[in-house]
């Protein structure tokens, strides 16, 4: 059998059928739905057009409409009043200094450029990479290393190792910032492996029988210092198994299996705490599922039941982030509410400062400029908003 255009196209169509037709954009059977859906688009565009036209007529407006488009325009950077010339562009920083923990983000105005911030929210450096590299870059917890789909880079952008995702599956950075862990398909099982920049991957343990069908295995946390990795298996509708595995021996410490109604997993970077998110619907067929639970990984014991909350992340310091709307809750692993924040967006990216309790939170606010708000939260709950236009790196 050959891999041909036809069987590839058929497979893509089967995959598409999982999501159904696009109800709001469907044009067959009458144009009204699409028209209604597009009406706000047209109205907004028309209003903007009239506004711009009016301003141009007054002669007071200078617009830089260099939209990125196939016609060869540049990137849109907004517009300014002629009476207020734009500020001088900030000096272009080089690679960030060594010896400090870094937060990396993508320059929203230049997707091929990575910006580095320190944990006081200051921009301390930048790297210009190939845009392929920034599309799926993940940073080590301390920011000293990056992995960009097939290679490791140090903070200066120098390649320090090769690790193709195609061979091994996507890695997860270990808590020590010097190793990565991942799971790959073997013939009859899934294989947990570890690697380091410049050091070839090493198989650690066989995890369960082969995933098979439409299920797959992934690492959710990996800690060399605690000698643990957490691997979960997900199918189309639910998470079915979670394993905690010793990195040194491959011994399975905990295996949670036959999980019911679990639709998401979160773990602390040190692989100590695990949250199993549950929900009605999906695998539960709309029946109320068991409560979302926080577990202590070495023992598998339940530390807290969080009801219907959805856990987005857990820090190694034992702070649990919950919420999937405008309200964000920070709780202890025992379920005690510590603080609440109003969130500017629905989903968030979390990074814990290595060796500390500061948390970086990033929100998907759907801003018109494509940037993501980013905030550092201190243990005393004070907050530092990181200025500038940036997007969260892939994770």
């Amino acid at each position, binding site marked *: 059998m050959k891999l041909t255009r036809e069987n590839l196209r058929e497979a*893509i169509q089967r995959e598409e059928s999982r999501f159904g037709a696009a109800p709001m954009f469907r044009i067959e059977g009458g144009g009204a739905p699409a028209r209604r859906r597009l009406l706000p688009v047209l109205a907004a565009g028309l209003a903007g057009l009239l506004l711009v036209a009016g301003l141009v007529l007054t002669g007071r407006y200078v617009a830089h409409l260099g939209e990125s488009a196939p016609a060869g325009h540049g990137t849109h950077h907004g517009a300014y009043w002629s009476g207020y010339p734009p500020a001088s562009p900030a000096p272009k920083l080089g690679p960030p200094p060594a010896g400090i923990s870094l937060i990396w983000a993508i320059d929203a105005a230049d997707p091929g450029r990575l910006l580095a911030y320190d944990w006081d929210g200051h921009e301390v450096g930048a790297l210009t990479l190939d845009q392929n590299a920034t599309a799926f870059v993940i940073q080590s917890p301390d920011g000293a290393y990056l992995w960009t789909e097939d290679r490791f880079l140090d903070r200066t952008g120098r390649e320090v190792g090769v690790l193709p995702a195609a061979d091994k599956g996507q890695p997860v950075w270990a808590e020590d910032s010097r190793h990565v862990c991942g799971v790959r398909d073997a013939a009859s099982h899934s294989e947990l492996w570890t690697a380091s920049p410049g050091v070839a991957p090493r198989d650690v343990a066989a995890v369960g029988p082969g995933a098979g069908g439409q299920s797959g295995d992934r690492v959710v946390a990996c800690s060399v210092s605690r000698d643990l990795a957490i691997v979960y298996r997900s199918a189309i509708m639910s998470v079915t198994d979670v394993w905690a595995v010793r990195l040194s021996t491959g011994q399975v410490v905990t295996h949670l299996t036959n999980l019911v109604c679990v639709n998401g997993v979160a773990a602390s970077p040190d692989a100590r705490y695990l949250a199993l998110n549950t929900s009605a619907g999906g695998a539960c067929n709309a029946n109320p599922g068991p409560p979302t639970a926080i577990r202590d990984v070495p023992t598998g014991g339940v530390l807290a039941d969080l009801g219907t909350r959805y856990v987005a992340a857990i820090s190694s310091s034992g702070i649990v982030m919950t919420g999937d709307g405008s309200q964000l809750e920070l709780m202890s692993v025992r379920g005690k509410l510590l603080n609440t924040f109003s969130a500017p967006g629905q989903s968030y990216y979390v990074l814990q400062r290595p060796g500390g309790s500061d948390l970086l939170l990033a929100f998907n606010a759907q801003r018109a400029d494509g940037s993501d708000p980013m905030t550092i939260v201190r243990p005393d709950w004070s907050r530092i908003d990181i200025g500038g236009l940036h997007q969260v790196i892939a994770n």
Partner: protein
Amino acid sequence: MAHKSPAEDSTRFDGLVRPLLEPAYRLAAFTLQDGHEAEDAVQEAAIRAWRRLDGLRDDTAIKSWFFTIVANECRSRQRRSWWRVVKTAEPALTADVPDVSAGLDLDRALQRLAPDDRLLIHLRFRLDLPIGEVARALRISEGACRTRLHRVLRGLRPDLEVDEELLR
């Protein structure tokens, strides 16, 4: 370029972009593996397309132009995904997924592709864009696009011989 009235712009936009919304949704759903996210992505792409319509000099280039915007929106949304949290894929909305057991391995391999690779495969083999336009949509060189295509196809089913026609 002669200035067009808003009504002309609206007619032009409707005529050019509307027929592409359905394929754009399929592209976004296949890439993002989420129907709701895909719908939002296409909506956002339509808004961006409207704002940039003046930048489209050649109406015959509408397909690659609009799919570039959709692809960028998908990539942008992918970057915003949660950290260390995986929400599993939503259940099928249609129950009539054909049971083609011979294709299951290929289906599974497609699901496991990185989002950028899914974009590549869909743009090239479902929307049938020429390799140069796929490269432009992904903001990479044509050479890099061919290299990536080669890698993705070889990795999809290592046990199968890849039809050379796919690599051209």
